[in-house]
């Protein structure tokens, strides 16, 4: 052993600084590695992750909800046609409980004029449907209090070790090193929370129904929390329902349940004077071309829903266009990227789900 080295102790202050610098460097490296390894699921998890990149207090419209929201509302179109800055804080199977916490989270960084809440998950009183759905919300959530409350609600039985993997998602996703592909190394900046399905499937228009189904208590409880939060922050809350088909008939029960919840919700919201835009019939949906699958809209359907919602919102509220404002130049840039991307996909005739 080198005696000179052995007895050459750095002073305490210098040693503490060295250790601090070492761990800061290690944190920085692991942060970057985590960015590569984190679960992305074709962009569905990027919505919460990318939200924090928005310029503070720059949003006009915040959309919250499940896949029905991010396949139903096209933020790039809202920008291009109306000059409105919008973002979909969406996540797969986002329940009302998750929507509430995501709204809590979003309002720490943004002060939108309008919150658009997609109503499909009024059907569920659960905290989450699948574990991956909870993770899609909590993995990238920054506010520790929101994260803790949601994790505690979702995993009441879990011990601290199980919960730790939700606070430090690297513990779970480090094993993704085996399945990394190109998309893990390249980030798309033009999501703004919306996803696009270019392909479509044809369905028959379902029969309208007046039946009603009971909305779970917990869903209503958390909706009330969302409503209170919006009122507290002087935000207009608008609930909307994207159109659905009933598939080829095999999803009849699902369709009736969905419409039953929609009809019950309509009464509930009317009593409380909350605007509810049921878009099943209003937007001129073409059941031949406007669906990707029986319950999610294709790009053409998404455009119709977005146009309707934006027309309604701009007519009701004072949503000025930010077009030409240098502070919003990133929206122009990202719209161009988005347009190029759509054109490329259309030209090649292919749609890679993970890339869209």
């Amino acid at each position, binding site marked *: 052993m080198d005696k000179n*080295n052995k007895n050459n102790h750095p002073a305490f202050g210098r040693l503490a600084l060295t250790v601090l610098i070492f761990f800061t460097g*290690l944190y920085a*490296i692991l942060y970057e590695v985590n960015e590569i390894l984190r679960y992305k699921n074709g962009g569905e998890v990027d919505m919460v992750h990318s939200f924090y990149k928005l310029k503070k207090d720059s949003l006009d419209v915040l959309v919250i909800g499940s896949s029905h929201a991010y396949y139903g509302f096209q933020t790039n179109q809202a920008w291009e046609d109306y000059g409105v800055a919008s973002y979909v804080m969406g996540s797969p199977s986002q329940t009302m409980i998750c929507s509430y916490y995501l709204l809590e989270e979003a309002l720490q960084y943004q002060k939108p004029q309008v919150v658009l809440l997609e109503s499909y998950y009024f059907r569920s009183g659960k905290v989450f449907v699948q574990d991956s759905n909870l993770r899609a919300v909590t993995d990238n959530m920054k506010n520790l209090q929101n994260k803790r409350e949601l994790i505690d609600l979702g995993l009441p039985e879990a011990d601290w070790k199980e919960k730790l993997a939700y606070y430090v998602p690297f*513990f*779970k996703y*480090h094993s993704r090193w085996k399945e990394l592909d190109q998309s893990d190394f390249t980030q798309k900046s033009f999501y703004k929370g919306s996803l696009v399905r270019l392909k479509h499937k044809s369905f028959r228009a379902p029969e309208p129904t007046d039946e009603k189904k009971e909305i779970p208590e917990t869903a209503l409880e958390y909706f009330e929390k969302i409503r209170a939060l919006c009122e507290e922050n002087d935000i207009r809350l608008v609930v909307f329902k994207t159109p659905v088909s009933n598939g080829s008939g095999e999803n009849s029960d699902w369709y009736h349940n969905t419409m039953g919840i929609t009809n019950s919700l309509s009464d509930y919201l009317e009593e409380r004077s909350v605007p509810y835009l049921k878009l099943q019939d209003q937007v001129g949906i073409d059941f031949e071309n406007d669906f990707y699958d029986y319950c999610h809209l294709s790009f053409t359907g998404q455009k119709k829903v977005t146009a309707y919602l934006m027309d309604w919102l701009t007519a009701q509220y004072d949503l000025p266009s930010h077009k030409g404002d240098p502070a919003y130049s990133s929206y122009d840039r990202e719209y161009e990227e988005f347009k190029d991307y759509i054109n490329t996909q259309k030209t090649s005739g292919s749609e890679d789900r993970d890339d869209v």
Partner: protein
Amino acid sequence: MLFNSIEFMVFFPSVCILYYLIPSRAKNLFLLACSYFFYMCWNPKYALILLISTAITYYCGLLLGRSDGIEDEEKRIRNKKLCIASGFILNLGILFFFKYFNLFSRTLNSVFALLHIHVNVPFFDVLLPAGISFYTFKVLSYIMDVYRKDIPAETDFIRYALYVSFFPQLAQGPIAHAKDMLPQFSEEHVFDWYNIRRGLLLMLYGYFQKAVLASWLGMIVDTVYGNWANCSGLQLLIATVCFAFQLYSDFAGYSCIAIGAGEVMGFTTLDNFNVPYLSKSVSEFWRRWHISLSTWFRDYLYIPLGGNRKGKWIKYFNIMTVFLVSGLWHGAEYHYIAWGGLNGLFQIIGDLLRPLRTRTLQLLHIQKNSAVHNIFRVIFTFILILITWVFFRAPSLVESVYILEKILIGFGTSAWRALPDGLKGLGIDRPVLLLLLASMIILIFFDVMKYRNICVRDFILKQKPYVRWTLYYAAVTAILVFGVYGPGYSSTEFMYIQF
């Protein structure tokens, strides 16, 4: 509390920082409290057994020390023998109850059944206290050392209790002998930044061996051995080779963490593994594998039995005794006893065949120390050790024999042709295979360096800071990314913890 647990990642740095901050006179008491806390994280009740073993042997030591003052030789020897016998019987009794009683009951019931005697010897559903095999051997080494006057009896109970329970060595060794370890608890351990980094580097290498190499190899081994009846001989052979390196990297990895953790606090522990798979004979293997246990058996069983001083056949008897006991120490199962017996048998056969080997080398004009001969010996020894590992890993003695038979029969050309398909059956995919190959290269590199007495740690610590830091960052990141841990991977216990 396992070394690869989150708790330990918090526990160890906290203990180290406080250890260097508190006054010297309080250090032993502090470490003792920490060690008992560490142990009680498994099962608080079993700390009592640890304390009982410690107290018994502490008083045995004191009585042995006092007996040395008796002038009447006959009385002195009688007293000392009584003391050491009591210490051994009481401690081995505890070990027997927890570890071997059920094997004993099972055997007795089988014998009674064969003799058509209707007696039912009961079983006890008790959990084996963590580390009992290790600390029992530690306390026995202490009373033997005092008995032989190699060390004086320890009068300070705190110091002795710390020797027994010192947390880096508590769960899985190394079984530090009293004469090597106990005096270190009387020394002052000052903050030594160079040694701390050396220790941390060794721990880092240990974590790599455990979390990356052993854990991924374990997946192959578990997949194949868990379904051995439907696997080909070649798959079983590959899995057995993987097991050889899994067990090595798991246990050597643990030892590195234990020794490194001791070094961080200023304690020196003898090496537990010294490149065992480059051994040229089975007896050399046992001088390089689990050295602390091998030397324990050598010092406290083989030599007292007469060692090699009483003729060839007594020596062979002693070797067989040592290895059968070693097998039994590893587990209360017949396949462990067979494993131990086989290791003893290979050594005896090797010794008996030595004249024949010498003659053959002369006839073939091969130099005894030539590279070709040495390589052949290393490979042949590895094959013999592989055979013994089948007995070690298989679930039972009967299954060991079937697995070995499958390996020998299934080792034909058709098996090699079926290799690509066979790899799928190993339960891993291509990225894991590449990771394992890269990890094996790292392991072999470090082993070859060690074999050549090159200390990689000192070499790294002499490099410029940017080189060192790059290496540290690369190593930590690689272990965190490629290691097997987190949700879905619960069975990452160290393998020797069960012994």
